[in-house]
């Protein structure tokens, strides 16, 4: 299941999930920054767990649920994290942004009201070289606050 759709794809046994997403499925939103699980640019959510897709073999995801940046927004509106990142100027070059958004989503999925420290540790697996993290952390806190407003509260997925 990829972003809610059941899909089939063919790949080589040595291909990573990252490579399958990008090279076989054309889903270029997930980025490769290092290929060794150190930068988080390739972060996706696998069965509710944040993973580096460069460290997962593509055949391993057979029958499992994968969420990528392409599935974060709804048809007619963005995810609150995306709104916050836009309004809070949480990126400069933007190449790490998909990974940060997925890491932040995984964090808020399990902890809807994180402290600043929890946010910082929640995205500590993601490198950003442009921002110094200040505006990213603020934007995640802001998104959490928006999502916790009574009219926005949703059932946990």
């Amino acid at each position, binding site marked *: 299941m990829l972003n809610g759709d059941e899909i089939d794809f063919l790949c080589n046994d040595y291909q990573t999930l990252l490579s399958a997403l990008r090279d076989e499925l054309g889903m270029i939103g997930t980025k490769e920054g290092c290929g060794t699980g150190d930068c988080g640019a390739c972060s996706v959510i696998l069965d509710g767990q944040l993973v580096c897709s460069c460290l997962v073999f593509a055949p391993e995801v057979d029958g499992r649920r994968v969420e990528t940046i392409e599935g974060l927004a709804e048809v007619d509106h963005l995810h609150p994290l995306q709104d916050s990142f836009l309004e809070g*100027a949480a990126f*400069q070059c933007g190449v790490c942004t998909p990974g940060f958004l997925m890491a932040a989503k995984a964090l808020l999925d399990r902890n809807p009201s994180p402290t600043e420290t929890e946010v910082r*540790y929640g995205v500590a697996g993601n490198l950003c070289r*442009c921002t110094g993290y200040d505006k990213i952390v603020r934007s995640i806190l802001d998104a959490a606050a928006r999502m916790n407003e009574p009219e926005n509260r949703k059932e946990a997925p």
Partner: protein
Amino acid sequence: MTTTRTGYKWVGTRPVRHDGLDKVTGRARFGADYATAGMLHGAVLRSPHPHARILSIDLTEAAAMPGVKAIITGADLPDLSDEFAAGSEGGINFRDLSRNILARDKVLYEGHPVAAVAAVTLRAAQQAAEVIEVEYEILPAVLSLEHAMEDDAPVLHDDLFTLGLDSEPDRPSNISRRRVIARGDLDAGWVEADVVVEREYTTKAVHQGYIEPHAVVAETGEDGRSTLWCSSQGHFAMRTYTTKVLGWEPGDMKVIPAEIGGGFGGKTTIYLEPLAALLSRRAGRAVKMVMTRSEVFRATGPTSGSVMRIKMGARRDGKLVAATAWMAYEAGAFPGSPIGPGVMTVLACYDIPNVLIEGYDVVLNKPKVAAYRAPGAPMAAFAAESVVDELAEKLDMDPIELRLRNAVTEGVRAVYGPKFRKIGFVETLEEARDHPHYAAPLGPWQGRGVASGFWFNFGGETTATVSINEDGTAVVMSGCPDIGGTRAALAQMAAEELGIDVHRIEPVVADTHSIGYNDMTGGSRVAFAVGIAVVDASRRLIKDMCARAALIWDVPAEEVEWVDGRAQSVTDAAAPLTLEELASGSANTGGPLSATVTVNPRGAGAGFSTQICDVEVDPDTGLVTVLRYTVVQDAGRAIHPDYVEGQMQGGAVQGIGWALNEEYIFDRNGVMENPGFLDYRMPVASDLPMIDTVIVEVPNPDHPYGVRGVGETGIIPPMAAVANAVYAATGKRMQDLPMSPVRVLEALSGD
């Protein structure tokens, strides 16, 4: 905190950036996101040795591998004579650039490209590269500045003779150039000094650390014309450099800029581009090449490691009266460290009458350095600002007060020659002194440090076009890749001029065939130089539109003025004509509404920053934690304050990484031991506090809105600010970067 002047509708506001939606949805296309049907994949064979002679290269087995379509080596590139790229003396020499792209007779660092292969899959290309047989004669490697500068050190280039010596050298050496700045009477200066501090400092090579590795897709047709899709800080320069290295004509190459995933100076030069273009030409297919992170570390960037000896003397009243600086910068395998800006910036913050600065550009068996954010200035400031801090202590004077007593101001002659024009250094010092951070209490093992920095900033050749669509929306086109929000800033300036909503303007980064030449996005130049062109183009359009309105109303042109996005008659006889009306009716008034302006502006206002850092040192582990950090910087005018703050915060955090963690580590054989983000430790979110910012606005008189470049200055003060804070917390002066836990622990146990 921003002190934005009122009266502007868009300048100084914080609109959502135009390219933002694509970047939060994963739709933005970066370098590695391009693909064409049937394209090949390229791989590079790199030297395992830091210094060796290439005796032979045997391609037989590799060429016979299934799926291999083309292989190239250094023999396939034309040999070029010494020629420097415009505006980069001591930077890019095409002869060296070519030899860095593919080694010729010698490999000069571990990771130096020796051959490149294109094959139907990446795996096939990599496997073919692995079976290329290269016979090397291993030569002794030179891995430190000290060693490289010794008289009997192995020489990398037997045709390299030191420039700038008092007498002509009679034999080659690893020192490519000496630079000297001298003024006043040093002996008299030292006599006048009541307090003197002299110290030696070292810094290690550090990488720009952009998250996006270098990537390119090249497609070269049967007619020799080619298209490159690549991420860089300047696609026009990529075209110039690539065609120069290949011996091709620039007009035969079109470069389409991808979104760029960080550059910080490191993407101002070429690595893969000529390889992919030539492989594509040989194979008759498009070729895609993407570096691994290990390749990025081993063969691109970094900035210089350095050794610096600084001596400064001050009178009892705090007046700096004499200073000397001896500086040596690693250039890597080919000449061209940023020693020039190093010697020019090291003492540039202060008005010191008697000075001698001596700088050396030194080659050694490490990757050729590339520009990195204010190239050459941060390490120099680490040394000089540490000495200033120590002088303040000896004088029993507040360190900001000492700086204020010596700060350069408008009209003061900079140490490198010219007089400063309007600058805001004093203002940054005063803001820092008066900031609550500066007076906040500290606990045990905590300390506070301050440091300042100066950067020139740059203008550069620029083309911009502003066009009005038939619905009254506008397109603002430039040719400078947008690394950090410049599209938004350019649109804001156009919106301010045209009097329309910023989101009715679409800012575009156009390819090399769609707009006139633009210098790179570098030198903190885009909001300044492209801003000037965009404002000028907007003003020309407005003049044109007023003339057209006059034509429609049959009144003299001077009776029409532009108010809130409309042409209005001053005599009020006619209803205003909107942008939309003027654009949709343009066929009757002289054709489409569009204006192109080219400039090569002077007056890029100098940038200054003063930063305050609080740290806590763990005496058991040596770990330094930054507790609080404030960046004060003169932006001239912040067009989009969010992205000005972002530049200040990002620069400061890169500097914090340089101060505390980051370094190239080589084993005794000259092989980089930490070519990955696990062991090359850049700051992560959990390492840091919020980074407070104070934007000082001392407008630059040479920009219509007062803009100064802001991209680079922020990285200059942090290393000294952190070191001074560590001293305040521990009583130990850290003179060698990085201040990693091991080094701090060593210093603490030195009692």
